[in-house]
């Protein structure tokens, strides 16, 4: 099973997230992650959806998403050159004796310490899937008390972009 990263531009209407999420659950598509936020255009939000499935599933996902009136454009960036990032916050329990070790790990992953408790450290790290997973694994032995990931966001490299077409309309799919 292949993972695909879709960049989905949607109208910034209330309920649009429910429409997209409902579609996935109703049709039995598996969402790996979904991140949503504003774009350069305040009327448009962008969802980055990571979905698992073979070519057939992906084709259906794309076509069904297109049918939602609030969905303006869908790009599957998986096969393209793109930058992807995810942010994770991890709270680990560390006694003062191990603090140094954890801070070293943070250094290696270019993570930042964003909060310090008597027995906890909270770290922030950004990167792609692989890096975040590795970071999580390295901290696991110390005891992860809490972990939250944003889900992946992605953008094409270079001059290419997944914004709206000039006429502002949805691409036609066949």
């Amino acid at each position, binding site marked *: 099973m292949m993972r695909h990263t879709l960049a989905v531009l*949607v*109208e910034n209407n209330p*309920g649009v997230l*429910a*429409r997209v999420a*409902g579609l996935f659950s*109703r049709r039995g598509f598996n969402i790996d992650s979904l991140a949503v936020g504003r774009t350069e255009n305040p009327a448009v939000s962008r969802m980055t959806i990571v979905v698992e499935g073979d070519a*057939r599933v992906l*084709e*259906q996902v794309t*076509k*069904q998403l*297109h*049918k*939602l*009136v*609030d*969905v*303006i454009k869908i790009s599957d960036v998986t096969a393209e050159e793109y930058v992807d990032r995810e942010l994770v916050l991890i709270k680990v329990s560390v006694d003062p004796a191990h603090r140094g070790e954890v801070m070293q790990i943070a250094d290696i992953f270019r993570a930042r310490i964003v909060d310090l408790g008597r027995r906890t450290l909270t770290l922030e790290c950004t990167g792609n899937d692989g890096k975040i997973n590795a970071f999580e694994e390295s901290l696991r032995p110390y005891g992860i008390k809490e972990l939250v990931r944003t889900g992946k966001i992605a953008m094409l490299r270079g001059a290419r972009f997944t914004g*709206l077409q000039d006429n*502002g*309309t*949805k691409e*036609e*799919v*066949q």
Partner: protein
Amino acid sequence: MQKRGAEILVECLLAEGVDTIFGYPGGAVLPIYDALYDADIRHILTRHEQGAAHAADGYARATGKPGVCLATSGPGATNLVTGIANAYMDSVPMVAITGQVPTSMLGRDSFQEADITGITLPITKHNYIVKHVDDLARTVREAFYIASTGRPGPVLIDIPRDVSGAVTEYRDSGPVRLPGYCPKTEPDPQQVVRAVRAIEESERPLIYAGGGVINAGAHEELLRLAEMLLAPVATTLMGLGGFPGDHPLSVGMLGMHGSKYANYAVCECDLLIGIGVRFDDRVTGKLEEFAPGATVIHIDIDPAEIGKNIGVDIPVVGDVRRSLQRLIEQLQPRLASRWRDKIMQWKKEFPIQFEDNGRVKPQEVIREIYNVTRGNARITTEVGQHQMWAAHYYTFTKPRTFISSGGLGTMGFGLPAAIGVQVACPGETVIDIAGDGSIQMNIQELCTAVNYDLPVKIAIMNNGYLGMVRQWQELFFNRRYSYTELDNPDFVNLAEAYGAVGMRVTKKAEIRPALEEALRIPKPVVIDFLIEREENVLPMVPPGEPISKMLG
């Protein structure tokens, strides 16, 4: 000009060409009903909101124009749900308007609050809650546009009470601008060329036509294409009437209750041309063995239908009518076809038939309905055996004359739908072919028919059973008739109580005179046909089997 939301709504409905609304009032729609009081729109008060939704649906199927229904918040809105789902499954253009609690009370479980946009999310093409009166006009315009273009479907507009009651400066909303909605109507020329080539190379083409043909108004093009190719045409339940059932190239319905010759044709064709269809499981049976030797062309307005259920070799996405026109332009007529001759032979060899034993057979009743109406009636149905007999024994020759719940299979659809059809087609004969079970699901609408002098005829195929379920119990559950026998009211008395005319037929010889009399009476008439109780619908493909394996 200063106007109230409700007045703006009515004005926008008029601008969309709405002449009739089917509805039921309540607190949250009081401002709307007040505006309707002296509006130039006909409002039909049904006896249940489900009836209003199905009536709007019937109206839409008969005319091709969006049907409009209206209900109050909470229970009014939830009562529409089955009707909306029904329209969604069969791609019927419809605009459902619901009242909602005032915006300030939303989200607090207020009296008669139901999250109807949430509830109808998966059964509408799109839906709206209008939170500000200034958005109302634009929303109504968009709703009609979305409901009636592309692949049609229901759109719901939820209007909080303070929005319909608010006063604002009313301006025209301007043209619809929906960046995320642009149905593709013109087919890709290259795909058309590929389809033409595949057709030219085929020896045994079969056309499989569905409701999309009727929605697109493509019945003439379909006829032309079939005659050019000498290709047999099988239709789905939804496609009945999209191709003349009495045409030599017609092989009737395919699938679970299809004709043997249609299903054999599917098995032996080398090219299957699906037109406005969705390869539903009731059509394909076991998917892996559906049209095993065929190249598949699929023509449809909805790209998401391509490849949803079955692999398609040549997709043609576009308006069905335009797509067929493009094909026809590039095709040469065939002069002879051994394949056609073979099918003609099958039609003689394996006719759809029943055994006449001198009693009241439902098949014969339907055949007589066809005879006395000379095939010129609009037929609605409920759901069950009688629906399949109607499909088999009434020969539909024109689009929009067979109006039946296909995708959802909604018992209780036929009577309210017949009311909607009769409202849309005042001078025509409208007959609901009903079952004794189904008719009781919306029997209250008899009152609506009587109130508005809508002379619909209701022919109940009364077998004292939930017959279709009983048939499955007989065939697949060892005749254990678990809760499928019905103890019914006296339908004749019931009809009379509502102010309609009731008749009963217990003998074969009475069938025709009763029908003739019913058609003479300019009032709603219920005919209770006491039919052979354990008659089965045949042929039948058992569920999950390939469609070549037919019983009967």
